[in-house]
């Protein structure tokens, strides 16, 4: 067993493909030696080293389906970021950095779960929830599932085409600018919006910025959801 790769071992990940998701975000498909899949919702740690030996380390959620042989990360470029500008603007096929994981055992969903699935994302908070939706699709799970996605404008929707065929109900609200002729929600998530769109009594996953998650989780509880059914993950920092 001494040759087995453990999640905590650093490995060299090689960029196999890059696709632009939005003007500020890209999806990197990675070749990782010994990658054995992950649980939907988990993250990896990555470590980049500069020529002068300087290192920077960050955590990123995995976007791909659990069984994907090559994990995919979707990264949003952040102002004052250190690693994300490289991921989005500099990386190209064949580039390499260090990676370890997958990690995380709370903000995860397994396909044998039987309760309705409510996913609520703010912007790039969609990434780990997309892994959950892909897991559900690939497993043929029939649990009811709904995604509520809050974005500023149409350009900010990751995976837009795939969401059309993901097999879950997708509700989008645009907080700054809606598409022309849009008849759906066009405001920040509020109590009435959640009352109309949330699936209560199942399992709810909320991911986004700290204020977004704080507001959504509080409103869900105020609307009667059991806090034990609500799992949250926050992009705590603006500096990733």
């Amino acid at each position: 067993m001494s040759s087995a790769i453990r999640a905590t071992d650093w490995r060299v990940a090689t960029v196999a493909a890059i696709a632009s998701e939005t003007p500020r975000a890209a999806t990197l498909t990675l070749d990782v030696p010994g990658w054995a899949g992950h649980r939907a919702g988990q993250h990896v740690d990555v470590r980049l080293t500069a020529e002068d030996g300087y290192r920077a380390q960050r955590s990123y959620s995995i976007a791909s389906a659990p069984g994907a042989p090559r994990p995919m990360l979707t990264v949003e470029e952040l102002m004052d970021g250190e690693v994300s500008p490289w991921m989005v603007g500099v990386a190209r096929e064949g580039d390499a950095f260090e990676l370890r994981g997958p990690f995380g055992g709370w903000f995860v969903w397994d396909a044998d779960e039987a309760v309705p699935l409510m996913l609520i994302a703010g912007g790039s908070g969609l990434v780990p929830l997309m892994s959950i939706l892909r897991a559900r699709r690939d497993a043929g799970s029939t649990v009811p599932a709904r995604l509520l996605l809050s974005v500023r404008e149409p350009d900010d929707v990751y995976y837009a085409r795939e969401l059309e065929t993901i097999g879950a109900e997708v509700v989008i609200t645009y907080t700054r600018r809606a598409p022309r002729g849009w008849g759906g929600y066009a405001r920040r998530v509020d109590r009435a919006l959640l009352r109309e769109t949330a699936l209560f009594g199942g399992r709810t996953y909320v991911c986004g910025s700290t204020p977004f998650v704080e507001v959504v989780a509080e409103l869900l509880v105020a609307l009667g959801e059991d806090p034990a059914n609500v799992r949250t993950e926050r992009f705590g920092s603006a500096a990733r």
Partner: protein
Amino acid sequence: MIVTRGFTRRRAADDRLPPGQYREDDFPVLSAGPTPHTPLDRWDLTVTGAVERELRFTWDELRALPVERPQVDIHCVTTWSKLDTHWAGVSVDALLEAARPRGGYVLAVCDGGYTTNLPLEDVTGGRAWIAYEFEGSPLAPEHGGPARLLVPHLYFWKSAKWVRGLVVRERDERGFWEELGYHDRGDPWLEQRYQGD
């Protein structure tokens, strides 16, 4: 060592940062579920388990204990660190001395069901507090208010938000994140992020 093409330093090195950490000036929030809100008139803090004397403090009783004002650096396992943070609270030493522990471990238990385990030596010797003020203001709910454990020399998930009890154990018993693969001790200078590190 593998060098990543095109990646360059954007920040100055800082020897106050443990390996793998970067400096953050905001105060990010991480938690596993909704923020609990326990009214202060129903809040208490207990010290139970393997102790000679079980203790219970109401909010007013806790606030009547001697105040300490640590200035510390804090380090989150998600790789941000925040330097020179200012807190006010009660030393865990004061609580444990009164309870007289008979075990070597502590499990912190919290509103919302969160738990974390620590060796007794990490919460004694002037290194841990029950903190209720941050930067001169009452600790905000999303940051663990009304009171959180503060153990700044370990990764910050050990500084349990919404703490309501310290349970002294004779044997170590894993808490919430530790059960899910995070390190039992979590020393940032040894980069003990996950079980196996």
